[in-house]
C-alpha cells in the first residue's frame, strides 16, 4: 500500500526529505569510493537544475548523456523545478535564431554594435506566468533532455532582464540553436 505525499503532512514531508537527502549523499559517497569518475548523484543533478553557479563536470555530462536513468531523472527534475519552458523551435530557419518564445517568456538575442563578439540576451517574462515566490535564478538550455548551457540571471527586480554574453559562448550558441529547449528556474 502506498502513501500519498500529501498524506504525510508537513512534518512527515520534512522527515522524508531528510531521509532522501541522506540516502542520496550516502549513495554518492559510496560511488566516489568505488570510482574515480563518479556517476552524478541526485544531489549533483539537483544542484545543476537549481543552483545558477553549479556546473556539471564534462565526465558527468557524458554519463548523463549515456545513462537513460540519469537522463530521465534529470528530465523529471527539470520538469519539476522549471517554471517556464520553451520547446525546441520548429526547424523553419537554416540560420541561428535571434528570438525564442515559450509560454510566458521571450528571449531575444541582439548583436552589440560596439563589439560583434558580444551579444545582448534580453529575457522578458510575463509576471502573471511566473508563479514562484522568488525571481528566476537561471535559464537552462537543454537538447533532448541533456544539459547544453546555463545562464545565471542577475538578481534584479522586475521581469525584464538583460545580460551581455560572448557571441561564441555555449549559452548564446545554445539559445540560437533551434533544436534546444529552454527552461527558466
Amino acid at each position, binding site marked *: 500500500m502506498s502513501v500519498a505525499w500529501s498524506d504525510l503532512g508537513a512534518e512527515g514531508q520534512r522527515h522524508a526529505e531528510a531521509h532522501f537527502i541522506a540516502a542520496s549523499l550516502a549513495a554518492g559517497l559510496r560511488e566516489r569510493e568505488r570510482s574515480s569518475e563518479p556517476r552524478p548523484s541526485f544531489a549533483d543533478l539537483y544542484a545543476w537544475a537549481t543552483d545558477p553557479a553549479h556546473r556539471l563536470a564534462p565526465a558527468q555530462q557524458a554519463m548523463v548523456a549515456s545513462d537513460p536513468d540519469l537522463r530521465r531523472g534529470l528530465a523529471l527534475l527539470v520538469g*519539476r523545478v522549471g517554471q517556464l519552458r520553451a520547446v525546441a523551435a520548429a526547424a523553419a530557419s537554416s540560420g541561428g535564431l535571434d528570438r525564442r*518564445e515559450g509560454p*510566458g517568456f521571450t528571449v531575444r538575442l541582439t548583436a*552589440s*554594435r560596439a563589439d560583434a563578439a*558580444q551579444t*545582448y540576451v534580453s529575457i522578458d517574462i*510575463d509576471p502573471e506566468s511566473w*508563479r514562484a515566490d522568488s525571481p528566476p535564478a537561471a535559464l537552462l538550455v537543454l537538447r533532448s533532455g541533456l544539459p547544453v548551457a546555463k545562464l545565471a540571471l542577475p538578481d534584479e527586480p522586475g521581469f525584464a532582464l538583460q545580460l551581455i554574453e560572448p557571441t561564441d559562448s555555449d549559452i548564446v550558441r545554445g539559445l540560437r540553436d533551434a533544436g534546444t529547449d529552454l527552461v527558466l528556474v
Partner: protein
Amino acid sequence: MSRTRVHIGTTEGPAEIQRLTAEPPEIRSVVCLDGRAVALPISRDYEGFVRRPTGIIERVWGGQAFRMDVGARVTDGLSWQLGAFLAHALHANGRLATSGVAPDAAVWATGEVDAGLAIRPVDEIPRKLELSAELLRGLAPLRPWVMVPAEAAAAASAALDSLGLAAACRLLPVARAEDALAAIGLVLPGAAPRAPDPAPPVRARRKRLMAVGIAAMVLLAIAVPAGWMAVTWRRTFLAWTDQAASGDLIALDQVLDRTGAEAGCLTCGPAVRRFRAWLATNLPDDNGPRIEAEGTQRSPYGGCRPPPPAGPAPVRAALADPSGLTVSTGLCRVRYLASGAPRIALIVSTRQPPDSVAIGAGEAAVTLDLPALYIYASEQRVIALGSKLPLESVLAWLRPQIPPPPAVLPDPLVKRLASVGIAARTLRHRVDPEHGL
C-alpha cells in the same frame, strides 16, 4: 578637430569613458567595464538617464540606447551623470576621444544632472580628487577641466590646492549643463519651438464662406422631398440587410465605409450610422461568447482515458479574462466549448499549425490532444466569435489576419468585427505538466 577625453570622478578612483556606441533601440542602455561583456550595476540608472521619458540624452541628442564603456568600476550613485552627459555631447559632435586616440583636451567631472539640466551637488568631492590626483598630474600638459557642482566650488578649490594641482587644472564650478558644454566649445542643439504661422486673413474669410456654404447645403438637403428619401433609403437598407443576412459582412462593411465617405452625399453618413447601429444589435446579448475548457487528467501510467461513468468528473473551468492566463495542470486532452450566441465560431491555436476550427449554432467545440512530453507546458490560444449573423465568410476573411499565437486578436480587428455585429474574445490557456509522476 580636437578630441576631448572624459573621466568620471568616483570614490573608488577615476573612470575613463573609453567609448560610446549607439546600440539597437530594443536594447536597454548599458555601462560596461573596459570593453568586456560585464554590465555594471549602474546600467539601470544609465538607461533611465538616456531614454525618454526620464532620459535627457534622447531628448537632447536623440538615440534610444547606448553602450558606454568605462575603464574602471563605477559602482553606484548618480555623480557619473555630468561626465556621461559631456561624453554624449562630444560623441554627438564627433569629438569624444575614445580609447587609443590621443586627446587634445581632458575633462574630469562629477555631478548629477537633473531633468532641467541643472547640476545637483554630490558627496565626497575632495576624496574623489585625492583618488584622481595621479591622473590629473599626468594630464597636466592638457590643463584638464575639473568640473564640479557650483555648491562644491570652495571644497574642490581647497582640495586642488592641498594636492598641488591648482595650477595644473582648470576648476569649473557648474550650475547648469550648458556651462560645462560652453567650456569645451559646445552648445545644446538649438531646438527653439516654432510659433505656429498665423492664418492669413484671406484664409479666415474663405473659411467663413465655406461654413456659410455648408449651412446652405444642409438646408438644401433638408428641403429634399421626404418621400424621395424614404423610397431611396428603403431600397438601400433592404439591400444591406439582405447582404448582412447572407453573412457577407466584410463586403458589407466596405460598402458602408464607401457610402459613408461619399463626397457630396449629405444623407449618406447618417444613413450608414443608422444601419451600423442596427448591425450592432446582432452582437450577442450577454456581452460576447463564453469559453469553457473541459480537461481529462493524464493517467499516472501515461495514458489518456476519459474517466469511467462513476469516476471523477472531468476538470472544467471557465477561462479567465483576456488580460489573464488560465493555468491547468496535468491534462492530456482538452475540449474547448464556446457558447452564448446564436452563431458561434471557435479557433484554437497552438504553436504548431494548423489551427482547429469549429462553427456551430448556439455552441461550437474543439477537442485537442496535448503532446505527451511530460516536462513541457503547452499553451493554447482560443478565439471565439459570436453573433446573430452567419460567420462562415467572416471567418474565411479573418483567419489570414490573425497573428500567430500567443498574440491575442488585435484591437482594431476586434473593433472592426464589432462594427458588423460580431463579438470576439481571445483567451489563453496553459496546461502545465503533472509533476511527481
